[in-house]
C-alpha cells in the first residue's frame, strides 16, 4: 500500500538530526569553509559521542548500506522490527546536509569504505571491519578508487596488486579519497593484471598504520571544504589476503562490488543534495517571505502571481521531486529490490536540482546573496560536487539510459 508516512523512529531521527544541524553544524559551517584543511576535531568528537550515546547507529547517514541479511541478523538478535536503514539514512542525511554538507561528510562512521564493505565483503570480513568502523572512538572508512588517470571509468584502475605468498603487494596513487586524512581503513581498488580486464579488479582493505600507505596531499576545493579530500600513495603496501573483499575465490564480486556500492550511496548523496537545496530555499524563504512580507500565492491564476513567487514554487517542486525519487531508490534497496536505475535517477535529479536552486537563490537574494556574510554562496559552491562525485551527472544518465534501453556498455558507450 502506497504510503508516505514516516515511522516514529524516522520522524524522531529527522527531528534530532535537524536540530543538531541547526544548533551545532550551522554555527561553525562558515568557519570550516574558510579554514579549509583544519580538522573540526571538537565537532567530530561531539558528534561521535552524541550519536553513540543514542544507542542508535547513525552510521548509515554517510554510507547507506544496511543489507537484507544484516536486517535479518539484527532482527534475530534484538527482536526489533526491521529497520529501513537506507531510507532512514536518506532522511537523516538530508537534515545534516541542510546544516552543512562539508561537515556532514566529516561525521565519523563507515563512510564509503563501509558501504563498499557492506556491498562486497564476506560475512566474516563484514564483522571484522565494521567493528573497526563502529568502534568506541570516532572512525572513518574511506574509499580509494579514483586515480589521476581516471574518474568515471572505474575499470581503468592502474594501481597494481601482486600476489606474494599470503599477501598482496599494492602499488599506485589514489586521489579524491573522501575522509582520506583520518581514515581508519581504506578500501583500495587495484588490478591483479590489466589483461584480466574488469574481473581482475579487486578491493583490498588497507588498515591504518600500514606503512605502505601515505597521505600525500589534501585537495583545495570549490566547496565542501570542511571535508577532507585526500591523495594517498601506496608504495609496496602489503595487505593480507584475508583483506581482499569477498575473498580470493569470488572472482566476480570485485568490480561488481564497487558498482553495487553505488546502489546504496547514490540515494544518500541525492539526499544530501536535496538537503542543500532546501537549505538555500529555507534561507531565502525566511528573509523574503517570513520577514520580507512576500506572499506566495500557491495555486493562484498565473497572471496574478509575480516572477519571484513562481520561482519559489518551482524551487520547492523541484526539491520535492528530488526527495521523492531519493526516497523511492532508498526504499527499494531496503526491500531488496534492484535499484540501479532509480538510484541514478535520484542522484541525477538531485544533482541538477541542487545546482539550479542554489544558483537561483543567490539571484533572488540580490547583491547581498553574493556576500560571504551569508551561506547562500557557500551552498552554491558546495552543491556543484553533487553532480560530480559518486558518478557525474553524465554517468548517471548513462546508467539510466542503458537500463531503460536494455543496452550493454558496448551498445551505449
Amino acid at each position, binding site marked *: *500500500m*502506497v*504510503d*508516505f*508516512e*514516516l*515511522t516514529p523512529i*524516522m520522524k524522531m531521527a529527522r527531528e534530532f538530526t535537524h536540530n543538531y544541524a541547526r544548533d551545532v553544524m550551522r554555527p561553525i559551517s562558515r568557519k570550516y569553509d574558510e579554514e579549509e584543511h583544519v580538522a573540526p576535531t571538537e565537532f567530530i568528537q561531539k558528534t561521535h559521542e552524541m550519536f553513540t550515546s543514542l544507542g542508535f547507529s547513525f552510521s548509515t547517514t554517510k554510507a547507506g548500506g544496511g543489507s537484507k541479511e544484516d536486517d535479518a541478523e539484527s532482527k534475530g538478535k534484538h527482536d526489533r522490527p526491521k529497520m*529501513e536503514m537506507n*531510507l532512514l539514512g536518506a532522511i537523516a542525511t538530508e537534515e545534516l546536509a541542510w546544516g552543512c554538507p562539508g561537515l556532514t561528510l566529516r561525521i565519523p562512521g563507515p563512510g564509503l569504505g563501509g558501504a563498499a564493505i557492506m556491498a562486497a565483503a564476506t560475512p566474516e570480513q563484514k564483522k571484522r571491519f565494521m567493528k573497526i568502523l563502529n568502534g568506541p572512538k570516532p572512525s572513518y572508512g574511506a574509499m580509494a578508487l579514483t586515480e589521476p588517470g581516471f574518474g568515471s571509468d572505474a575499470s581503468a584502475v592502474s594501481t597494481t596488486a601482486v600476489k606474494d605468498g599470503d599477501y598482496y603487494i599494492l602499488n599506485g596513487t589514489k586521489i579524491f579519497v573522501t575522509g582520506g586524512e583520518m581514515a581508519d581503513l581504506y578500501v583500495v581498488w587495484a588490478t591483479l593484471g590489466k589483461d584480466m580486464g574488469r574481473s581482475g579488479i579487486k578491493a583490498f582493505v588497507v588498515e591504518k598504520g600500514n606503512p605502505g600507505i601515505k597521505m600525500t596531499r589534501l585537495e583545495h576545493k570549490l566547496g565542501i571544504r570542511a571535508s577532507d579530500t585526500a591523495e594517498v600513495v601506496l608504495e609496496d603496501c602489503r595487505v593480507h589476503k584475508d583483506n581482499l573483499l569477498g575473498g580470493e575465490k569470488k572472482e566476480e564480486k570485485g568490480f561488481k562490488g564497487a558498482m553495487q556500492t553505488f546502489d546504496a550511496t547514490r540515494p544518500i548523496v541525492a539526499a544530501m543534495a536535496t538537503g542543500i537545496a532546501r537549505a538555500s530555499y529555507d534561507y531565502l524563504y525566511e528573509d523574503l517571505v517570513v520577514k520580507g512580507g512576500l506572499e506566495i500565492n*500557491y*495555486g*493562484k*491564476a498565473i*497572471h*496574478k502571481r509575480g516572477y519571484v513567487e513562481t520561482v519559489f*514554487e*518551482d524551487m*520547492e*517542486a*523541484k526539491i*520535492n*521531486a528530488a526527495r*521523492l*525519487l531519493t*526516497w*523511492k531508490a532508498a*526504499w*527499494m534497496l531496503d*526491500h531488496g529490490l534492484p535499484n540501479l536505475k*532509480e538510484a541514478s*535517477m535520484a542522484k*541525477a*535529479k538531485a544533482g541538477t536540482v541542487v545546482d539550479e536552486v542554489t544558483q537561483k537563490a543567490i539571484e533572488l537574494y540580490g547583491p547581498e546573496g553574493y556576500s560571504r556574510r551569508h551561506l547562500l554562496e557557500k551552498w552554491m559552491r558546495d552543491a556543484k560536487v553533487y553532480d560530480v562525485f559518486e558518478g557525474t551527472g*553524465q554517468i*548517471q*544518465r*548513462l546508467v*539510466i*539510459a*542503458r537500463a*531503460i*534501453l536494455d*543496452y550493454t556498455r558496448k*551498445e*551505449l*558507450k
Partner: protein
Amino acid sequence: MVSFELSEEQKLLRDTCRDFALTAMRKYDRQSDESGEIPSDIVKQGHELGLTTGYIPETYGGPGGELSALNGVIILEELAYGNLSMALNILAPSLVNIPLVLYGTEDQKKKYFGMNKPDQFHGFTAALAEPAVKFDPEALRTAAADEIDDFVLNGEKAFVAIADSALATIVFARKGSGEGLAGIDGFIVPSGGFTVKEREKNQGLRALKQFTISLEGTRVPRSDVLRLSGGFAGLLARARTASIALTTGVCRAAYEYALAYAKERIAFGEPIASRQSVAFTLAEMAMEVDAMRLMAWRSAWMIDKGIDAYKDASMGKRYAADAAMFVTRNATQVLGGHGFTRDHPVEMWYRDARSFAVSEFMAIV
C-alpha cells in the same frame, strides 16, 4: 511507513486500465483526433470498467468501494496513457459523482447516483472555466442569484466536456459578489438547462467534445445546490492531483514511443539510441515521468489521509505541466522529421500535453 508498493487490487486495477488503454483506446486514437469523434463503443467499453461508480455506496445502488484518490491517479495515468481525450470523456461522470460523495445531500445522492447505469454511458460533467482571457477560478463571473426558492444562474462557461449529451452538469458559481474560492458552490443543472453553444476548437484534445455553454436565467432549485461550505479548494486540489496523473500518462506514452523508435531507427549504421545525445534525452524523460508519478501519488495519498493537499497539488500540477512540455517536445524531437508528421502519435501527445498548464477541473480523483 513509507511504501511505494501498490496493493494487489491496485495492481489489478492498473493492469486492467493499461490493457484497455493499449488494446482499445490506442487503436482509435489517431482516427479520433482527426475526426473529432470518439467511437461510442470505446466510451461504452471504458464505462463498463466501472471506474466512475466503484465508490458509490451500496445504499445508493453502487458497489460500495472506498473513494480513493490513489486509485484515482492510477486509473487516470493509465487511461491518459491510452488517450487523453477518451480518458476525459470516459471519466467525466466522476466530475459529478465524486463531489456528490463528498458533499451531496441524501436526496441528491439518491437522485443522481441512480442515473448511473453500469451498461450505458449517460454522462455527467462539470463546468468551471469561463470564456475569458486571464481566467481565474477565484473571480468567477457566473453568478448565482438567490431568489428564495431557486437560484438563478447567469453567465458563460467554456471547455465543458460532453455538455451536449450530459444528463447533469455541475456548474460552479458563487452566490453573490466577491472573490476567492471559499464562496463557490456547485449548481447541478440537468440537460437542457443551458444553451450549448459552439464546440471548442482546440490545439489538442481534438477528439473530446467540449463546448461553451450559456446560462441565461437558469433556475436551480435549492435541492440541487451542492453546498461546498468552503470546500471548493479541496475539490480543486483533487482536480489538480488528477491533472498530475493525466500528465504522467500522456508523458509516459510519448516517452515509451520515442524509446522504442530510437532503438529501431538506424542512422550512421547504428540505432540512434546508441548515441548519447538521444539516450540522455530519453533518460531525462524517464526521470521526469517517474518524478511526476510520485508527485501524483503523494498528493493523492495526502487527500486520502485527509491532509490539505491544495498547495502540493497546485505545485505538482504546475511542475508536471512544465515537465510535460519537456517530455513531449523531446519525444517529437527524437523522431526527427517523422515526429512532425501525423503518421506518428507524438505530435498529438505534444498538442494534448499543452492543455495541462491551462486547463482546470478536467478530471477529479
